[in-house]
């Protein structure tokens, strides 16, 4: 009796093991399938429902909308030309502003360095309305900057409603991105390689050029590529700080969709996407060639921010850092501080907590159809956590798949980056058509809205960041590591979990930070997929509270900043244990 029982039990265990083994050996394939399903369901299919309007009009295939865009001097020169020009300037500015930040964060030690690095992600979650308010208060004719210049007896500047205003605002959003990815790469530089170079007689400059620079360039390139793609599709900030004379292609896509001129909107969006994806493809070809630079086991020691000796070189370095800190103060700190000040200013310009009292009141007495602050915070955090759970595995998986060598790898890789390259307005309309209205199958309408759909949409927007942070590191791993693990009997997944992931943990954690931030800041698909005010998030609340006075919206915006900062400092504590660098 007992023997039979044991037999049964052991057979059951065997069966479970067999299933587990089967799952493990096919886990990558299953994961890839799941990722593909999510991508098709909440991205490719919805976007296709909009793009099809560019090639099918009144049920007939046509190339007329695309031809009319591509033969229009106005669209090609005034709109696409200008859009690319401002994106290029914005990219240059973002790199110029981001690189010194990476240098300071990677090479110097000072109190609060890790917290500062965590907080560099904050601009990523700022609603454009908030940035516009902060920028007007900072760079306007009567702004803080001009007040300081006047006090110093210097001439004032007129920045608002000009191209430079847009470029600086884009740098506000994207310089932190450049800084973060470059910092991660800089921290991965092996100190022994530099020491070897130095011992062979290379000067510090030479050692930097030959050893450090080649490892930084791919990171700078990915930061620059993403910046270009983002600023190419920039929309609200352009009209809020520049004006209509500086309209970009996204302004026209919005206008055409507003007026239900879908064929023209879709044609513009297709051209926009093709340009962005082509650039991404070029970058990915470049990234693919940057393999095997080798990853350091021992990072370089950091220098103290306080000079250790009084040499002209040391002092010059510190002076440069102080100069950079002043620029950072003007571009990042003052606009955010202005926003906080606005949230604390009453109608007569007095200091007041009334806008925060409004939030409390709305929380207590707000009706079900109104947006209340606490549910918005809760939703943002839940969707953010969900995005981590879904988006990080998707991103890692995509990185694993695309670091293998196969024909058309860069093309597949570029297509997987498409969620970053397609107009947010188009994605919003596509989600409305594809998910909210759904499709009819055998007389039953299949729709998908609410929390799960929102998380899926956020994950699709977020996973490319994980992929781009992880793929270069994976590509640098010595393939023999995996081969030996496999030859010792480890499944592919086992090798990934036990060998590869711990070695690229910094990239995973960095990607996760971006994924969380993307989810917190997301607006377009959230409002479309939300089931009324009960599934609204913090940025939606900010938009809803915008009225004649800026107080309520900025108070909500400050809440958004506070909750996000706290989240990142908390995640940093956990993430810091897992992988050095990253956050």
């Amino acid at each position, binding site marked *: 009796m007992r023997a039979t029982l044991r037999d049964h039990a052991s057979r059951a265990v065997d069966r479970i093991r067999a299933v587990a083994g089967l799952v493990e050996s096919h886990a990558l394939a299953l994961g890839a399938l799941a990722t593909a399903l999510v991508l098709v369901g909440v991205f490719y299919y919805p976007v296709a429902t909009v793009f099809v309007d560019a090639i099918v009009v009144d049920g007939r295939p046509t190339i007329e909308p695309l031809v009319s865009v591509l033969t229009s001097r106005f669209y090609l020169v005034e709109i696409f030309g200008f859009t690319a020009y401002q994106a290029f300037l914005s990219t240059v500015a973002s790199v110029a502003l981001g690189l010194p930040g990476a240098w300071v964060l990677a090479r110097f030690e000072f109190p609060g360095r890790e917290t500062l690095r965590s907080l560099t992600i904050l601009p990523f979650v700022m609603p454009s309305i908030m940035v516009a308010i902060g920028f007007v208060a900072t760079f306007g004719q009567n702004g803080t900057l001009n007040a300081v210049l006047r006090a110093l007896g210097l001439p004032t500047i007129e920045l608002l409603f000009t191209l430079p205003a847009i470029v600086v605002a884009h740098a506000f959003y994207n310089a932190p991105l450049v800084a973060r990815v470059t910092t991660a790469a800089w921290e991965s530089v092996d100190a022994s390689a530099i020491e070897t170079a130095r011992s062979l007689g290379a000067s510090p400059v030479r050692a930097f050029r030959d050893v450090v620079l080649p490892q930084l360039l791919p990171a700078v390139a990915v930061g620059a590529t993403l910046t270009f793609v983002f600023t190419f599709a920039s929309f609200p900030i352009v009209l*809020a700080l520049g004006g209509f004379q500086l309209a970009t292609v996204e302004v026209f896509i919005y206008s055409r969709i507003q007026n239900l001129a879908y064929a023209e909107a879709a044609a513009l969006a297709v051209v926009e996407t093709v340009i962005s994806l082509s650039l991404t493809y070029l970058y990915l070809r470049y990234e693919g060639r940057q393999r095997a630079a080798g990853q350091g086991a021992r990072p370089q020691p950091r220098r103290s921010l306080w000079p250790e000796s009084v040499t002209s070189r040391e002092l010059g370095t510190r002076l440069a850092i102080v100069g950079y800190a002043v620029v950072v103060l003007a571009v990042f700190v003052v606009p955010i501080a202005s926003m906080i000040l606005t949230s604390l200013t009453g109608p007569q310009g007095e200091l007041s907590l009334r806008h925060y009292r409004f939030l409390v009141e709305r929380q207590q007495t707000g009706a079900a*159809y109104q947006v209340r602050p606490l549910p918005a915070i809760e939703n943002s955090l839940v969707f953010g956590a969900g995005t981590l759970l879904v988006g990080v595995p998707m991103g890692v998986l995509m990185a694993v798949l695309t670091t293998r060598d196969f024909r058309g790898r860069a093309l597949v890789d570029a297509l997987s980056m498409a969620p970053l390259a397609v107009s947010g307005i188009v994605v919003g309309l596509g989600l*409305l058509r594809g998910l909210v209205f759904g499709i009819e199958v055998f007389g039953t309408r299949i729709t998908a809205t609410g929390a799960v759909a929102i998380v899926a949409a956020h994950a699709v927007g977020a996973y490319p960041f994980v992929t781009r942070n992880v793929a270069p590191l994976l590509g640098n791993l010595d393939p023999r590591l995996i081969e030996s693990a496999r030859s010792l009997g480890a499944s592919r997944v086992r090798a990934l979990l036990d060998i590869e992931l711990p070695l690229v943990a910094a990239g995973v954690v960095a990607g996760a930070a971006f994924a969380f931030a993307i989810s917190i800041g997301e607006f377009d698909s959230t409002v479309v997929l939300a089931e009324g005010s009960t599934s609204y998030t913090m940025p939606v609340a900010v938009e809803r509270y915008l009225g004649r006075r800026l107080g309520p919206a900025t108070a909500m915006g400050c809440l958004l900043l506070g909750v996000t900062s706290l989240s990142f400092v908390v995640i940093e504590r956990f993430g810091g244990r897992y992988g050095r660098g990253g956050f």
Partner: protein
Amino acid sequence: MKRRTFLRTVGAGGVAGLAGCAGGSGGGGSTSTTESATTQTQTGTTTGMAGGTPELVVATYGAFVDAPSTSPGPWIKETFESEFDATLTFATPDSEINYFIERALQGVEIDADAYVGLNVDMLIRIDDRLDDGLFADVGDVDGRGEVKDGLNFDPQGRIVPYDTSYVSLVYNETMSDDGTFTAPETFDGLLDSEYEGDLLAQNPTGSSTGKSFLLHTIKAKGPDGYLDYWQELQNNDVRVLSDWSSSYTAYSNEEAPMVVSYSTDQVYANREDQDLAKHQIRFLNDQGYAYPEGMSVFRNADNPDLAEQFLEFMLRPEVQGEIAQRNVAFPATTTAELPDDFAEYAQAPPEAVTFTYDALRDNVSEWTQAWERQFASN
């Protein structure tokens, strides 16, 4: 019958997620909800029931129910429900009327009874894209006869106006060295070099003030002259920003002394005890561009009778007065009950101007697109 689950969820609050969620698999992106698509047979008044009480679903724009200052939505819901045996549920899709046009275009049933917040642009969009339109003929609702002449913007009588605004300039007297800045009195005056860089306006697409101001210039300068006028306006450094909010932010920060806004501006300023010198109204050419807002009943509404009663309710003298005060606009009817001091801060123009539906339907797209191309080319 789960056709209205989504909207009822909005009204009832609390209920997270849709009923009928099948567990998502493969990364969690494929939760589906099934809805019966065979609702055409159930057109009686019993379909939109929430717990035995008929449910009236009113779609509108967010600020109508959820503005941080005041919005008429909560008062309307409370008052309507206290008198009628019905539950009033607000739906505020982010893309407003386009959400319903899209539903109709994609062949998905409309899940609301009435819409509040229609303007002539929206109506033209509906009529251009949908052969059968979206709205029922509600010409005979009580109180319709009280609506002021000139506010009716639908020649077919499907839309009933419930309030109106007038778009004008708002200017800041204190923004000159001696504190006596005055806005010009005419459109031509805006071209004077003394007003260089002094005016903030808005993108006509996506902002009703921007669209009204553009149409007002066409009214003043003619379809053949407005582009030349705008060329000179642009040479004089007019700023066309994304929307009313961003331009009013810049105005409040004293980036410029004039902004295109509503002639009710002083109502807010007075409420908050602000300096009225910073909130002066100017009707260019002694005209204000009228921006009436209307409401109607969806053609396939579940509760058409209740929806018509709602429209009649909205036109009652006391309700008209409340809407005007809470939406900070002018009532649509001549019989609205308003406090005596209402007119003190809500300024009406000597002459209200507007284009007819027919003139706009034939031209508004071309006018706007020509303007967009010219302005963005410079």
